Protein backbone atom coordinates (compact mmCIF):
# COMPACT_ATOMS: atom_id res chain seq x y z
CA UNK A 1 0.00 0.00 0.00
CA UNK A 2 1.38 3.40 -0.92
CA UNK A 3 1.21 6.47 1.22
CA UNK A 4 -2.02 7.81 -0.28
CA UNK A 5 -3.95 4.78 0.79
CA UNK A 6 -2.93 5.00 4.38
CA UNK A 7 -5.47 7.67 5.23
CA UNK A 8 -8.30 6.12 3.19
CA UNK A 9 -10.99 4.44 5.24
CA UNK A 10 -11.59 0.77 5.66
CA UNK A 11 -15.25 -0.19 5.73
CA UNK A 12 -16.46 -3.26 7.51
CA UNK A 13 -19.92 -4.63 8.09
CA UNK A 14 -20.85 -7.12 10.78
CA UNK A 15 -24.01 -9.20 10.67
CA UNK A 16 -25.71 -6.45 8.73
CA UNK A 17 -29.40 -6.93 7.81
CA UNK A 18 -31.98 -4.58 6.37
CA UNK A 19 -35.77 -4.72 6.46
CA UNK A 20 -38.11 -2.75 4.27
CA UNK A 21 -41.05 -2.58 6.64
CA UNK A 22 -41.44 -6.34 7.23
CA UNK A 23 -39.66 -7.76 4.21
CA UNK A 24 -36.06 -8.71 4.71
CA UNK A 25 -33.91 -7.36 1.85
CA UNK A 26 -30.62 -8.96 2.87
CA UNK A 27 -29.38 -10.49 6.06
CA UNK A 28 -26.30 -11.32 8.04
CA UNK A 29 -23.69 -9.80 5.79
CA UNK A 30 -20.22 -9.52 7.30
CA UNK A 31 -17.90 -8.07 4.73
CA UNK A 32 -14.55 -6.30 5.01
CA UNK A 33 -13.91 -3.63 2.40
CA UNK A 34 -10.21 -2.78 2.22
CA UNK A 35 -8.99 0.78 1.97
CA UNK A 36 -8.07 2.13 -1.45
CA UNK A 37 -9.21 -0.95 -3.34
CA UNK A 38 -12.11 -1.60 -5.68
CA UNK A 39 -14.55 -4.08 -4.25
CA UNK A 40 -17.22 -5.36 -6.63
CA UNK A 41 -20.60 -6.66 -5.46
CA UNK A 42 -22.13 -9.13 -7.89
CA UNK A 43 -25.18 -11.35 -7.85
CA UNK A 44 -28.58 -11.81 -9.42
CA UNK A 45 -31.27 -9.17 -9.44
CA UNK A 46 -33.06 -8.59 -6.14
CA UNK A 47 -30.38 -10.11 -3.93
CA UNK A 48 -29.93 -6.90 -1.97
CA UNK A 49 -26.81 -5.33 -3.49
CA UNK A 50 -28.31 -1.85 -3.79
CA UNK A 51 -29.84 -2.14 -0.36
CA UNK A 52 -26.50 -3.15 1.10
CA UNK A 53 -24.75 -0.26 -0.59
CA UNK A 54 -27.31 2.21 0.73
CA UNK A 55 -26.43 1.20 4.28
CA UNK A 56 -22.79 2.17 3.91
CA UNK A 57 -23.51 5.89 4.11
CA UNK A 58 -26.96 5.56 5.65
CA UNK A 59 -28.83 6.57 2.52
CA UNK A 60 -31.16 3.82 3.68
CA UNK A 61 -32.45 6.35 6.22
CA UNK A 62 -34.53 8.21 3.68
CA UNK A 63 -36.64 5.24 2.60
CA UNK A 64 -39.58 5.17 5.02
CA UNK A 65 -39.92 2.19 7.35
CA UNK A 66 -36.49 0.69 6.83
CA UNK A 67 -34.82 -1.03 9.75
CA UNK A 68 -31.17 -1.96 9.93
CA UNK A 69 -29.57 -4.40 12.36
CA UNK A 70 -25.90 -5.19 12.75
CA UNK A 71 -22.98 -2.78 12.40
CA UNK A 72 -21.16 -0.83 9.75
CA UNK A 73 -17.72 0.35 10.79
CA UNK A 74 -15.82 2.97 8.89
CA UNK A 75 -12.37 3.02 10.47
CA UNK A 76 -13.60 1.74 13.82
CA UNK A 77 -16.58 4.15 13.96
CA UNK A 78 -20.03 2.56 13.97
CA UNK A 79 -21.98 4.75 11.56
CA UNK A 80 -25.35 3.64 12.91
CA UNK A 81 -24.40 5.16 16.22
CA UNK A 82 -26.89 7.87 17.16
CA UNK A 83 -24.12 10.37 17.78
CA UNK A 84 -22.68 10.17 14.28
CA UNK A 85 -22.45 13.34 12.22
CA UNK A 86 -24.47 12.38 9.14
CA UNK A 87 -23.31 15.33 7.09
CA UNK A 88 -19.65 14.50 7.68
CA UNK A 89 -20.35 10.82 6.99
CA UNK A 90 -22.01 11.47 3.65
CA UNK A 91 -19.33 13.91 2.61
CA UNK A 92 -16.76 11.29 3.37
CA UNK A 93 -18.63 8.56 1.51
CA UNK A 94 -20.01 9.65 -1.86
CA UNK A 95 -22.63 7.82 -3.95
CA UNK A 96 -23.26 7.40 -7.66
CA UNK A 97 -26.52 5.88 -8.80
CA UNK A 98 -27.48 3.63 -11.65
CA UNK A 99 -29.46 6.27 -13.46
CA UNK A 100 -27.53 9.53 -13.84
CA UNK A 101 -29.25 12.17 -11.71
CA UNK A 102 -27.93 15.55 -12.75
CA UNK A 103 -30.01 18.33 -11.19
CA UNK A 104 -32.14 20.33 -13.61
CA UNK A 105 -29.81 23.31 -13.78
CA UNK A 106 -26.50 24.17 -15.40
CA UNK A 107 -23.43 21.96 -15.43
CA UNK A 108 -21.55 24.59 -13.47
CA UNK A 109 -24.23 24.88 -10.81
CA UNK A 110 -24.47 21.10 -10.49
CA UNK A 111 -20.94 21.18 -9.14
CA UNK A 112 -21.09 24.55 -7.40
CA UNK A 113 -24.23 23.67 -5.47
CA UNK A 114 -22.69 20.99 -3.24
CA UNK A 115 -19.54 23.08 -2.82
CA UNK A 116 -21.49 26.10 -1.63
CA UNK A 117 -23.56 23.89 0.59
CA UNK A 118 -20.39 22.83 2.31
CA UNK A 119 -19.06 26.28 2.86
CA UNK A 120 -17.01 27.10 -0.23
CA UNK A 121 -18.30 30.54 -1.19
CA UNK A 122 -15.32 32.02 -2.98
CA UNK A 123 -16.00 32.12 -6.70
CA UNK A 124 -12.38 31.52 -7.72
CA UNK A 125 -12.06 28.53 -5.48
CA UNK A 126 -15.30 27.14 -6.82
CA UNK A 127 -14.15 27.60 -10.40
CA UNK A 128 -10.81 26.01 -9.65
CA UNK A 129 -12.40 23.02 -7.92
CA UNK A 130 -14.83 22.56 -10.80
CA UNK A 131 -12.07 22.64 -13.39
CA UNK A 132 -9.89 20.15 -11.51
CA UNK A 133 -12.75 17.76 -10.96
CA UNK A 134 -14.04 17.93 -14.51
CA UNK A 135 -10.52 17.20 -15.73
CA UNK A 136 -10.41 14.30 -13.31
CA UNK A 137 -13.45 12.70 -14.88
CA UNK A 138 -12.34 13.59 -18.40
CA UNK A 139 -15.24 15.91 -19.04
CA UNK A 140 -13.37 19.21 -19.16
CA UNK A 141 -12.54 19.01 -22.85
CA UNK A 142 -16.10 18.22 -23.74
CA UNK A 143 -17.96 20.80 -21.66
CA UNK A 144 -15.58 23.63 -20.78
CA UNK A 145 -17.23 25.87 -23.36
CA UNK A 146 -20.78 25.21 -22.19
CA UNK A 147 -20.56 25.10 -18.42
CA UNK A 148 -23.64 27.27 -18.12
CA UNK A 149 -25.88 25.11 -20.25
CA UNK A 150 -28.38 22.77 -18.70
CA UNK A 151 -26.87 19.55 -17.43
CA UNK A 152 -29.85 17.74 -18.89
CA UNK A 153 -28.56 18.52 -22.37
CA UNK A 154 -25.57 16.20 -21.86
CA UNK A 155 -25.53 12.64 -23.18
CA UNK A 156 -26.15 9.78 -20.76
CA UNK A 157 -22.49 8.94 -20.38
CA UNK A 158 -21.55 12.59 -19.88
CA UNK A 159 -24.32 12.95 -17.31
CA UNK A 160 -22.97 9.97 -15.39
CA UNK A 161 -19.45 11.39 -15.43
CA UNK A 162 -20.88 14.70 -14.25
CA UNK A 163 -22.52 12.85 -11.36
CA UNK A 164 -19.20 11.24 -10.51
CA UNK A 165 -17.60 14.69 -10.65
CA UNK A 166 -20.33 16.01 -8.40
CA UNK A 167 -19.46 13.38 -5.82
CA UNK A 168 -15.70 13.93 -6.23
CA UNK A 169 -15.88 17.69 -5.92
CA UNK A 170 -16.59 17.27 -2.21
CA UNK A 171 -13.34 15.31 -1.90
CA UNK A 172 -14.77 12.18 -0.37
CA UNK A 173 -12.58 9.28 0.74
CA UNK A 174 -14.86 6.49 -0.33
CA UNK A 175 -17.19 6.05 -3.30
CA UNK A 176 -20.24 3.83 -3.60
CA UNK A 177 -21.30 3.13 -7.17
CA UNK A 178 -24.54 1.32 -7.90
CA UNK A 179 -24.36 -0.16 -11.40
CA UNK A 180 -22.96 3.10 -12.76
CA UNK A 181 -22.65 1.76 -16.31
CA UNK A 182 -25.81 -0.25 -16.82
CA UNK A 183 -27.93 2.64 -18.06
CA UNK A 184 -25.30 3.64 -20.61
CA UNK A 185 -24.49 2.62 -24.15
CA UNK A 186 -21.41 0.38 -24.60
CA UNK A 187 -19.04 3.19 -25.52
CA UNK A 188 -20.00 5.51 -22.68
CA UNK A 189 -19.98 2.49 -20.43
CA UNK A 190 -16.38 1.83 -21.37
CA UNK A 191 -15.40 5.44 -20.73
CA UNK A 192 -16.99 5.43 -17.29
CA UNK A 193 -15.41 2.09 -16.48
CA UNK A 194 -11.96 3.37 -17.37
CA UNK A 195 -12.62 6.41 -15.23
CA UNK A 196 -13.51 4.25 -12.26
CA UNK A 197 -10.44 2.12 -12.75
CA UNK A 198 -8.33 5.29 -12.80
CA UNK A 199 -9.67 6.21 -9.36
CA UNK A 200 -8.19 3.11 -7.79
CA UNK A 201 -5.91 3.92 -4.93
CA UNK A 202 -7.35 7.40 -4.49
CA UNK A 203 -10.62 6.29 -2.95
CA UNK A 204 -12.04 3.25 -1.24
CA UNK A 205 -14.47 2.05 -3.89
CA UNK A 206 -17.45 -0.26 -3.72
CA UNK A 207 -19.15 -0.96 -7.02
CA UNK A 208 -22.26 -2.98 -7.75
CA UNK A 209 -22.22 -4.54 -11.19
CA UNK A 210 -24.11 -7.10 -13.20
CA UNK A 211 -21.32 -7.32 -15.63
CA UNK A 212 -18.91 -10.11 -14.56
CA UNK A 213 -16.41 -9.16 -17.22
CA UNK A 214 -16.38 -5.65 -15.84
CA UNK A 215 -15.85 -6.94 -12.31
CA UNK A 216 -12.97 -9.01 -13.60
CA UNK A 217 -11.42 -6.04 -15.35
CA UNK A 218 -11.53 -3.53 -12.53
CA UNK A 219 -12.10 -5.20 -9.17
CA UNK A 220 -9.50 -6.09 -6.57
CA UNK A 221 -12.01 -7.94 -4.44
CA UNK A 222 -15.33 -9.53 -5.32
CA UNK A 223 -18.32 -10.37 -3.14
CA UNK A 224 -21.14 -12.57 -4.40
CA UNK A 225 -24.67 -12.08 -3.05
CA UNK A 226 -27.48 -14.57 -3.50
CA UNK A 227 -31.06 -14.96 -2.38
CA UNK A 228 -31.53 -17.86 -0.01
CA UNK A 229 -34.57 -18.51 2.16
CA UNK A 230 -36.20 -15.34 0.91
CA UNK A 231 -33.39 -12.92 1.72
CA UNK A 232 -30.13 -11.84 0.14
CA UNK A 233 -27.00 -13.27 1.70
CA UNK A 234 -23.26 -13.03 1.15
CA UNK A 235 -22.17 -16.28 -0.48
CA UNK A 236 -18.50 -15.82 -1.04
CA UNK A 237 -15.92 -13.12 -0.77
CA UNK A 238 -12.29 -12.91 -1.78
CA UNK A 239 -9.62 -11.57 -4.06
CA UNK A 240 -10.74 -11.20 -7.64
CA UNK A 241 -8.42 -13.95 -8.97
CA UNK A 242 -9.46 -16.38 -6.27
CA UNK A 243 -13.17 -15.84 -6.93
CA UNK A 244 -12.85 -16.16 -10.66
CA UNK A 245 -10.23 -18.89 -10.85
CA UNK A 246 -10.71 -20.88 -7.72
CA UNK A 247 -14.20 -20.37 -6.29
CA UNK A 248 -14.99 -22.36 -3.15
CA UNK A 249 -18.76 -22.31 -3.31
CA UNK A 250 -20.79 -24.30 -5.87
CA UNK A 251 -23.04 -21.30 -6.48
CA UNK A 252 -20.07 -19.08 -7.22
CA UNK A 253 -18.74 -21.66 -9.63
CA UNK A 254 -21.92 -21.91 -11.62
CA UNK A 255 -22.52 -18.14 -11.47
CA UNK A 256 -19.14 -17.15 -12.86
CA UNK A 257 -19.43 -19.82 -15.49
CA UNK A 258 -22.66 -18.21 -16.58
CA UNK A 259 -24.82 -21.17 -15.65
CA UNK A 260 -26.94 -19.31 -13.13
CA UNK A 261 -28.09 -15.80 -12.40
Amino acid at each position, binding site marked *: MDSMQSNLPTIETQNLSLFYDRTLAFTDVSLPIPAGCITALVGPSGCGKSSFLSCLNRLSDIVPKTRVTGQVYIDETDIFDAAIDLIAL*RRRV*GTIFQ*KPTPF*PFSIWKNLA*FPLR*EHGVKNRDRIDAAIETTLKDVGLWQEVSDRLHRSA*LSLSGGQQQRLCIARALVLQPQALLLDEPCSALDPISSGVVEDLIASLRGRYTIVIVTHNLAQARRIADFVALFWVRDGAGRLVEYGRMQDIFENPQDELTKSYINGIRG
Partner: protein
Amino acid sequence: MSPFLRDTLLVVTLRSFAILCGAIVLPIVGFLFLEAYPAIEKIGWVSFWRDRSWNPTEGAYNLMPMLWGSLFVTAGSVLVAIPLGIGSALFSQYYAPPILARLYRRLLEILAGIPSVIYGLWGLVVLVPLIWQIEPPGTSLLAGIVILTLMILPTIALSADASFSKVPFAYWQATTALAVTRWSAIWHVAFPVAKSGIFAGILLAIGRAIGETIAVLMVCGNVVEVPNSLFDPMRTLTANIALEMAYASEYHRSALFVSGLLLMAAIALLIFLAEIVNRRGIYE
Protein backbone atom coordinates in the same frame (compact mmCIF):
# COMPACT_ATOMS: atom_id res chain seq x y z
CA MET B 1 -81.40 -3.41 -32.87
CA SER B 2 -78.17 -4.65 -34.38
CA PRO B 3 -74.99 -4.15 -32.36
CA PHE B 4 -73.65 -1.92 -35.07
CA LEU B 5 -76.67 0.37 -34.97
CA ARG B 6 -76.55 0.42 -31.19
CA ASP B 7 -72.89 1.40 -31.27
CA THR B 8 -73.48 4.19 -33.72
CA LEU B 9 -76.38 5.49 -31.68
CA LEU B 10 -74.24 5.41 -28.54
CA VAL B 11 -71.37 7.27 -30.15
CA VAL B 12 -73.67 9.90 -31.58
CA THR B 13 -75.47 10.39 -28.25
CA LEU B 14 -72.30 10.65 -26.22
CA ARG B 15 -70.69 12.98 -28.69
CA SER B 16 -73.67 15.29 -28.62
CA PHE B 17 -73.52 15.25 -24.80
CA ALA B 18 -69.88 16.26 -25.00
CA ILE B 19 -70.56 19.00 -27.50
CA LEU B 20 -73.39 20.29 -25.33
CA CYS B 21 -71.17 20.40 -22.23
CA GLY B 22 -68.35 21.96 -24.16
CA ALA B 23 -70.66 24.59 -25.56
CA ILE B 24 -72.08 25.80 -22.25
CA VAL B 25 -69.48 28.54 -21.96
CA LEU B 26 -70.78 30.10 -25.15
CA PRO B 27 -74.29 31.01 -23.91
CA ILE B 28 -72.76 32.13 -20.61
CA VAL B 29 -70.54 34.66 -22.34
CA GLY B 30 -73.26 35.34 -24.88
CA PHE B 31 -75.88 36.22 -22.32
CA LEU B 32 -73.46 38.36 -20.38
CA PHE B 33 -72.85 40.36 -23.55
CA LEU B 34 -76.50 40.46 -24.47
CA GLU B 35 -77.55 41.78 -21.08
CA ALA B 36 -74.58 44.09 -20.75
CA TYR B 37 -75.04 45.56 -24.19
CA PRO B 38 -77.70 48.17 -23.36
CA ALA B 39 -75.48 49.68 -20.67
CA ILE B 40 -72.37 49.69 -22.84
CA GLU B 41 -74.37 51.16 -25.70
CA LYS B 42 -76.26 53.76 -23.73
CA ILE B 43 -73.96 54.64 -20.86
CA GLY B 44 -70.70 54.02 -22.63
CA TRP B 45 -67.44 52.49 -21.34
CA VAL B 46 -66.02 55.76 -20.04
CA SER B 47 -68.84 56.24 -17.55
CA PHE B 48 -67.78 53.13 -15.73
CA TRP B 49 -64.61 54.81 -14.63
CA ARG B 50 -65.40 58.49 -15.07
CA ASP B 51 -68.74 58.92 -13.30
CA ARG B 52 -68.91 60.65 -9.95
CA SER B 53 -69.88 57.54 -8.07
CA TRP B 54 -71.82 54.32 -8.23
CA ASN B 55 -75.40 55.44 -7.84
CA PRO B 56 -77.45 53.80 -10.56
CA THR B 57 -80.78 55.28 -9.44
CA GLU B 58 -79.29 58.67 -10.24
CA GLY B 59 -77.55 57.60 -13.36
CA ALA B 60 -74.01 57.35 -11.97
CA TYR B 61 -72.23 54.17 -12.89
CA ASN B 62 -68.66 54.36 -11.65
CA LEU B 63 -67.42 50.79 -11.16
CA MET B 64 -63.90 51.77 -10.10
CA PRO B 65 -64.39 51.58 -6.31
CA MET B 66 -65.62 48.02 -6.68
CA LEU B 67 -62.81 47.16 -9.07
CA TRP B 68 -60.26 48.47 -6.62
CA GLY B 69 -62.05 46.63 -3.84
CA SER B 70 -61.82 43.33 -5.71
CA LEU B 71 -58.20 44.01 -6.56
CA PHE B 72 -57.14 44.87 -3.00
CA VAL B 73 -58.88 41.99 -1.36
CA THR B 74 -57.58 39.53 -3.96
CA ALA B 75 -54.02 40.83 -3.90
CA GLY B 76 -53.93 40.90 -0.11
CA SER B 77 -55.25 37.39 0.35
CA VAL B 78 -53.10 35.90 -2.39
CA LEU B 79 -49.96 37.51 -0.98
CA VAL B 80 -50.68 36.05 2.45
CA ALA B 81 -51.91 32.71 1.20
CA ILE B 82 -48.90 31.96 -1.02
CA PRO B 83 -46.34 31.60 1.78
CA LEU B 84 -48.84 29.89 4.06
CA GLY B 85 -49.99 27.53 1.33
CA ILE B 86 -46.49 26.62 0.21
CA GLY B 87 -45.44 26.24 3.84
CA SER B 88 -48.35 23.86 4.32
CA ALA B 89 -47.27 21.84 1.31
CA LEU B 90 -43.68 21.70 2.59
CA PHE B 91 -45.02 20.46 5.90
CA SER B 92 -47.03 17.60 4.47
CA GLN B 93 -44.40 16.74 1.88
CA TYR B 94 -41.06 17.10 3.69
CA TYR B 95 -41.31 18.05 7.32
CA ALA B 96 -44.17 16.12 8.89
CA PRO B 97 -43.96 12.52 10.05
CA PRO B 98 -46.02 10.36 7.65
CA ILE B 99 -49.12 10.05 9.85
CA LEU B 100 -49.32 13.79 10.51
CA ALA B 101 -48.71 14.49 6.83
CA ARG B 102 -51.68 12.34 5.87
CA LEU B 103 -53.92 13.92 8.50
CA TYR B 104 -52.89 17.41 7.48
CA ARG B 105 -53.57 16.69 3.83
CA ARG B 106 -57.01 15.38 4.73
CA LEU B 107 -57.62 18.52 6.75
CA LEU B 108 -56.69 20.72 3.80
CA GLU B 109 -59.06 18.76 1.59
CA ILE B 110 -61.92 19.32 4.01
CA LEU B 111 -60.98 22.96 4.39
CA ALA B 112 -61.15 23.31 0.60
CA GLY B 113 -64.68 21.92 0.60
CA ILE B 114 -66.20 24.11 3.32
CA PRO B 115 -68.84 26.34 1.68
CA SER B 116 -68.17 30.06 1.47
CA VAL B 117 -71.29 30.91 3.43
CA ILE B 118 -69.84 29.12 6.44
CA TYR B 119 -66.58 31.05 6.22
CA GLY B 120 -68.71 34.17 5.89
CA LEU B 121 -70.77 33.35 8.94
CA TRP B 122 -67.71 32.70 11.05
CA GLY B 123 -66.11 35.86 9.75
CA LEU B 124 -69.16 37.92 10.52
CA VAL B 125 -69.77 36.57 14.00
CA VAL B 126 -66.24 35.90 15.24
CA LEU B 127 -63.68 37.76 13.16
CA VAL B 128 -65.43 41.07 12.54
CA PRO B 129 -66.03 41.79 16.26
CA LEU B 130 -62.35 41.03 16.89
CA ILE B 131 -61.28 43.57 14.26
CA TRP B 132 -63.88 45.99 15.63
CA GLN B 133 -62.01 45.94 18.92
CA ILE B 134 -58.89 47.16 17.17
CA GLU B 135 -60.67 49.67 15.00
CA PRO B 136 -64.40 49.99 14.20
CA PRO B 137 -66.41 49.16 12.20
CA GLY B 138 -64.79 45.72 11.93
CA THR B 139 -66.33 44.87 8.57
CA SER B 140 -63.35 45.78 6.46
CA LEU B 141 -60.81 45.06 3.80
CA LEU B 142 -58.79 43.25 6.47
CA ALA B 143 -61.69 40.94 7.33
CA GLY B 144 -62.09 40.15 3.65
CA ILE B 145 -58.40 39.41 3.26
CA VAL B 146 -58.34 37.08 6.25
CA ILE B 147 -61.40 35.13 5.17
CA LEU B 148 -60.27 34.86 1.55
CA THR B 149 -56.81 33.77 2.68
CA LEU B 150 -58.37 30.88 4.58
CA MET B 151 -60.46 29.98 1.56
CA ILE B 152 -57.70 29.92 -1.05
CA LEU B 153 -54.93 28.55 1.15
CA PRO B 154 -56.03 24.92 0.62
CA THR B 155 -56.05 25.43 -3.15
CA ILE B 156 -52.47 26.65 -3.14
CA ALA B 157 -51.36 24.10 -0.57
CA LEU B 158 -52.91 21.07 -2.28
CA SER B 159 -51.59 21.92 -5.72
CA ALA B 160 -48.12 22.68 -4.37
CA ASP B 161 -48.25 19.42 -2.42
CA ALA B 162 -49.17 17.52 -5.59
CA SER B 163 -46.36 19.20 -7.53
CA PHE B 164 -43.77 18.46 -4.86
CA SER B 165 -44.89 14.85 -4.75
CA LYS B 166 -43.99 14.57 -8.44
CA VAL B 167 -40.37 15.60 -7.87
CA PRO B 168 -38.45 12.40 -8.64
CA PHE B 169 -37.22 10.51 -5.58
CA ALA B 170 -33.86 10.18 -7.31
CA TYR B 171 -33.23 13.90 -6.72
CA TRP B 172 -33.92 13.42 -3.06
CA GLN B 173 -31.48 10.52 -2.94
CA ALA B 174 -28.87 12.54 -4.80
CA THR B 175 -29.12 15.56 -2.52
CA THR B 176 -29.01 13.34 0.54
CA ALA B 177 -25.94 11.59 -0.81
CA LEU B 178 -24.29 15.00 -1.21
CA ALA B 179 -25.14 15.79 2.42
CA VAL B 180 -27.17 18.80 1.38
CA THR B 181 -29.55 20.07 4.04
CA ARG B 182 -33.23 19.45 3.60
CA TRP B 183 -33.97 23.10 3.03
CA SER B 184 -31.24 23.52 0.40
CA ALA B 185 -32.52 20.46 -1.42
CA ILE B 186 -36.02 21.92 -1.39
CA TRP B 187 -34.94 25.41 -2.37
CA HIS B 188 -32.44 24.52 -5.09
CA VAL B 189 -33.93 21.35 -6.52
CA ALA B 190 -37.57 20.72 -5.53
CA PHE B 191 -38.78 24.28 -6.12
CA PRO B 192 -37.41 24.64 -9.65
CA VAL B 193 -38.86 21.27 -10.60
CA ALA B 194 -42.27 21.92 -9.00
CA LYS B 195 -42.59 25.59 -9.82
CA SER B 196 -44.90 25.41 -12.81
CA GLY B 197 -47.37 23.27 -10.85
CA ILE B 198 -47.19 25.63 -7.89
CA PHE B 199 -47.72 28.59 -10.16
CA ALA B 200 -50.75 26.97 -11.77
CA GLY B 201 -52.20 26.45 -8.28
CA ILE B 202 -51.63 30.10 -7.46
CA LEU B 203 -53.43 31.18 -10.62
CA LEU B 204 -56.32 28.91 -9.68
CA ALA B 205 -56.39 30.50 -6.25
CA ILE B 206 -56.38 34.02 -7.71
CA GLY B 207 -59.37 33.03 -9.82
CA ARG B 208 -61.20 31.75 -6.75
CA ALA B 209 -60.39 34.93 -4.84
CA ILE B 210 -61.61 37.26 -7.58
CA GLY B 211 -64.81 35.29 -8.04
CA GLU B 212 -65.64 34.75 -4.38
CA THR B 213 -68.86 36.49 -3.48
CA ILE B 214 -70.79 35.52 -0.40
CA ALA B 215 -67.96 35.34 2.10
CA VAL B 216 -66.49 38.74 1.20
CA LEU B 217 -69.96 40.21 1.00
CA MET B 218 -70.64 39.11 4.57
CA VAL B 219 -67.46 40.54 6.11
CA CYS B 220 -66.38 43.53 4.02
CA GLY B 221 -69.05 46.08 4.92
CA ASN B 222 -69.97 46.83 1.31
CA VAL B 223 -69.53 50.60 1.40
CA VAL B 224 -68.94 51.83 -2.14
CA GLU B 225 -65.66 53.55 -1.56
CA VAL B 226 -62.02 52.85 -2.26
CA PRO B 227 -60.61 51.79 1.12
CA ASN B 228 -57.84 53.97 2.53
CA SER B 229 -56.69 51.52 5.12
CA LEU B 230 -57.01 47.88 6.02
CA PHE B 231 -59.74 48.77 8.49
CA ASP B 232 -61.99 50.56 6.01
CA PRO B 233 -65.10 48.84 4.74
CA MET B 234 -65.31 48.25 1.01
CA ARG B 235 -67.26 46.46 -1.70
CA THR B 236 -66.13 44.02 -4.37
CA LEU B 237 -67.50 43.65 -7.88
CA THR B 238 -68.99 40.30 -6.97
CA ALA B 239 -70.66 41.54 -3.81
CA ASN B 240 -72.07 44.44 -5.78
CA ILE B 241 -73.79 42.06 -8.15
CA ALA B 242 -75.15 39.87 -5.36
CA LEU B 243 -76.44 42.84 -3.40
CA GLU B 244 -78.17 44.69 -6.20
CA MET B 245 -79.28 42.06 -8.70
CA ALA B 246 -82.44 41.35 -6.72
CA TYR B 247 -83.93 44.77 -7.32
CA ALA B 248 -81.94 46.18 -10.25
CA SER B 249 -83.73 46.87 -13.49
CA GLU B 250 -82.96 48.31 -16.90
CA TYR B 251 -79.56 50.03 -17.15
CA HIS B 252 -78.75 49.28 -13.55
CA ARG B 253 -79.23 45.56 -14.19
CA SER B 254 -77.33 45.90 -17.42
CA ALA B 255 -74.43 47.60 -15.63
CA LEU B 256 -74.26 44.66 -13.25
CA PHE B 257 -73.82 42.38 -16.22
CA VAL B 258 -70.97 44.60 -17.34
CA SER B 259 -69.24 43.84 -14.07
CA GLY B 260 -69.94 40.17 -14.75
CA LEU B 261 -68.13 40.61 -18.05
CA LEU B 262 -65.18 42.19 -16.26
CA LEU B 263 -64.99 39.17 -13.96
CA MET B 264 -65.00 36.85 -16.94
CA ALA B 265 -62.26 38.89 -18.58
CA ALA B 266 -60.14 38.51 -15.46
CA ILE B 267 -60.71 34.75 -15.44
CA ALA B 268 -59.89 34.54 -19.14
CA LEU B 269 -56.62 36.34 -18.50
CA LEU B 270 -55.74 33.90 -15.72
CA ILE B 271 -56.53 30.90 -17.89
CA PHE B 272 -54.38 32.37 -20.63
CA LEU B 273 -51.49 32.77 -18.19
CA ALA B 274 -51.99 29.22 -16.93
CA GLU B 275 -51.83 28.00 -20.49
CA ILE B 276 -48.48 29.72 -21.02
CA VAL B 277 -47.05 28.26 -17.82
CA ASN B 278 -48.30 24.85 -18.87
CA ARG B 279 -46.67 25.08 -22.27
CA ARG B 280 -43.33 25.97 -20.81
CA GLY B 281 -43.49 22.69 -18.93
CA ILE B 282 -41.57 21.58 -15.93
CA TYR B 283 -38.02 21.79 -17.23
CA GLU B 284 -38.71 24.82 -19.38
